[in-house]
C-alpha cells in the first residue's frame, strides 16, 4: 500500500492512533537504550584499560547512568554572560530533536500483527528513507554550530568550526558510500532495502562501501578517532564547553542517540537488518536481532575509541577529501557498472 503524501511516499500506513502509540514507544525505547549504551561504553572502555569502570552505584554500577542524569538535571541552570540566550538554549534542543527524529525511521522488523492490528515495526517507512536520515543529520549541524556560536567563548567557537568542517566533509563520503547499496537494492526505503538482502547481506558485495561508511560514521558522530570537535585535550570540550546541567545532558544524550542511529543505518544497509543467515527467526524476535546487531556496532565504537589516537586536523581533512571521497566515488561507479552489466 503506497500512499502519496505531500512530502514523500509512505510505504505502509497504520491508523493514526497506532502511529501515536508507536512514536511514544519508539521514543521510550531510544531513551531506555541510551543509558545502557552509556554504561556499556564506560564499562567496556574500562576493561580495555584494565580497570573496573563504574561499580559503586547499584549492582555492578548499573545505576550509574541514572545517578549521572539526576546529577546533571538537578544542577544549576546557568549561562555565560557573553552568550546569546535564546540560541544558547535552542542549540541542544536541535541536537536532541534531530537525533530522535532520525531514530524514527530505523526499521526494527517487518510489518507484524500485534493484537490483531498490522503494525510496521518502525516509526515510518518513508520512500526517501536514507535521505531523511541525511536531512536530519544536516540539521543536526545547527545544534553544534549554534551551541558553539551562542556560547560566546573561543573554545566553543573553535570546536563548532571544526565540527562544521568535519561533518560537512564526511557527510559527502558517507552519502556516496551508501549509493552503491541503493543502486543494488533499487529503492531508498529502509525496510525494502532489508528485504532485498534476504539472499546475501550487502556487506559482502559492498565491503568497500561498508568500510567507507564506517569511517565516516565515526566522523559523523564525533567519536574517537575523529572527536576533534570536542577534543578535550586541545579545546577543553569544543562546542559544549560552556554548557552544563541539563543542557549538557541533552548534548550528551543526542550524541549517544546519534551513535544508535548510525549503527542502525549500518545494520539496515549492510548487515541485513532483522534477518539472520540460515535461520528465520519468528517475527517478534526481529527487534532483538536488530538491537543485537546495533550493539555489535556500539562495541566496535568503544573498541576503536580505546585503540586509536585522535587525528590531526589537516590529516582529518585530507583523509576525508583525498581518500574517502574518491574511494566512495569509485565504489559507486564500479557498482553502477556492475549493476548495469548484470541486469
Amino acid at each position: 500500500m503506497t500512499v502519496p503524501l505531500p512530502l514523500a511516499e509512505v510505504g505502509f500506513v497504520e491508523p493514526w492512533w497506532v502511529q501515536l502509540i508507536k512514536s511514544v514507544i519508539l521514543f521510550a525505547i531510544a531513551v531506555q537504550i541510551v543509558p545502557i549504551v552509556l554504561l556499556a561504553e564506560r564499562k567496556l572502555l574500562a576493561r580495555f584499560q584494565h580497570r573496573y569502570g563504574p561499580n559503586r552505584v547499584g549492582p555492578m554500577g548499573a545505576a550509574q547512568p541514572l545517578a549521572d542524569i539526576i546529577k546533571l538535571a538537578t544542577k544549576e541552570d546557568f549561562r555565560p554572560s557573553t552568550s546569546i540566550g535564546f540560541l544558547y538554549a535552542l542549540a541542544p534542543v536541535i541536537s536532541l530533536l534531530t537525533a530522535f527524529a532520525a531514530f524514527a525511521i530505523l526499521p526494527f522488523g517487518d510489518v507484524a500483527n500485534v493484537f490483531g492490528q498490522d503494525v510496521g515495526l518502525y516509526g515510518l517507512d518513508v520512500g526517501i528513507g536514507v535521505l531523511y536520515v541525511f536531512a536530519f543529520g544536516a540539521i543536526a549541524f545547527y545544534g553544534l554550530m549554534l551551541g558553539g556560536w551562542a556560547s560566546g567563548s573561543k573554545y566553543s567557537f573553535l570546536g563548532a568550526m571544526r565540527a562544521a568542517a568535519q561533518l560537512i566533509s564526511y557527510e559527502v563520503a558517507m552519502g556516496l558510500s551508501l549509493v552503491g547499496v541503493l543502486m543494488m537494492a533499487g529503492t531508498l526505503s529502509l525496510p525494502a532495502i532489508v528485504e532485498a538482502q534476504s539472499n546475501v547481506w550487502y556487506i559482502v558485495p559492498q565491503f568497500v562501501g561498508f568500510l567507507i561508511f564506517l569511517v565516516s560514521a565515526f566522523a559523523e558522530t564525533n567519536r574517537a578517532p575523529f572527536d576533534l570537535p570536542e577534543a578535550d585535550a586541545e579545546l577543553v570540550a569544543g562546542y559544549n564547553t560552556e554548557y552544563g546541567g541539563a543542557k549538557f545532558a541533552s548534548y550528551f544524550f543526542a550524541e549517544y542517540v546519534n551513535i544508535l542511529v548510525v549503527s542502525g543505518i549500518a545494520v539496515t544497509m549492510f548487515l541485513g537488518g532483522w534477518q539472520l543467515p540460515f535461520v528465520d527467526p519468528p517475527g517478534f524476535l526481529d527487534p532483538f536481532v536488530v538491537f543485537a546487531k546495533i550493539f555489535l556496532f556500539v562495541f566496535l565504537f568503544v573498541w576503536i575509541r580505546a585503540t586509536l589516537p585522535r587525528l590531526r586536523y589537516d590529516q582529518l581533512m585530507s583523509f576525508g577529501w583525498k581518500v574517502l571521497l574518491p574511494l566512495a566515488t569509485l565504489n559507486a561507479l564500479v557498482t553502477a557498472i556492475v549493476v548495469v552489466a548484470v541486469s
Partner: protein
Amino acid sequence: MTWNPGDDMLVVQRAPQPGAAGGAYRTFGETLRGLKTTMARLFEGPKTISYPEEKVPVYPRFRGRHRLHRFEDTGLEKCVGCSLCAAACPADCIRVVAAENTPENRVSAGERYAAVYEINLSRCIFCGYCEVACPFDAITMGHDYEMSDYNRSDLIFTKEMLLDEPLERTPLRNEGE
C-alpha cells in the same frame, strides 16, 4: 640520496617508504594490529585493586604510624622518657615530658617515664629517625598508613593511642612475597 651508515653497520632500521597503495595497506594493517592489542587487554581482566576493600600488603620494613611498646612479661612501658627521639626528630613533631617513677606508681622499667608522649602526625615525615634514636626500642614505626582525619588536633597522637593496638590491622607482606 639515502644516508650511508658506514660499512661496519649491518642492520639499519628504516621507516617504510611512503606509498599510495602500500601505505594504505600498512595503515590498515597497523590499525588491525592496534585493535588486536586492545582486545587482548579486554580478556586479561581488570588489574585494579579496589582500595578500601582490598589493600596492598605492606613490606615488613614499611614505615607507617608509630607504636610505643611495653615489656611483654611485666607490662611496664619500655619508654624511659629520655627525649632522644624528640631530639632526633627533623620535623620536631615529638613532645616528651618525663616524670620520676616512684615505688607506688611504677610506669616504666627505668628511673623515669614519659608522663606526656605526643606525636603530631600532621608534622611527622615518617623518616624513622625516632626509631633509630631510641635506646630501648620503645618506639617503632608500625604498618598503619590510614591516618586521615577531619581535625588537625585529632592528628596529635597521645601516649595511650600510641600504646594501644591499632583499630584495624594493615596486611603485611610475607617474606619473599
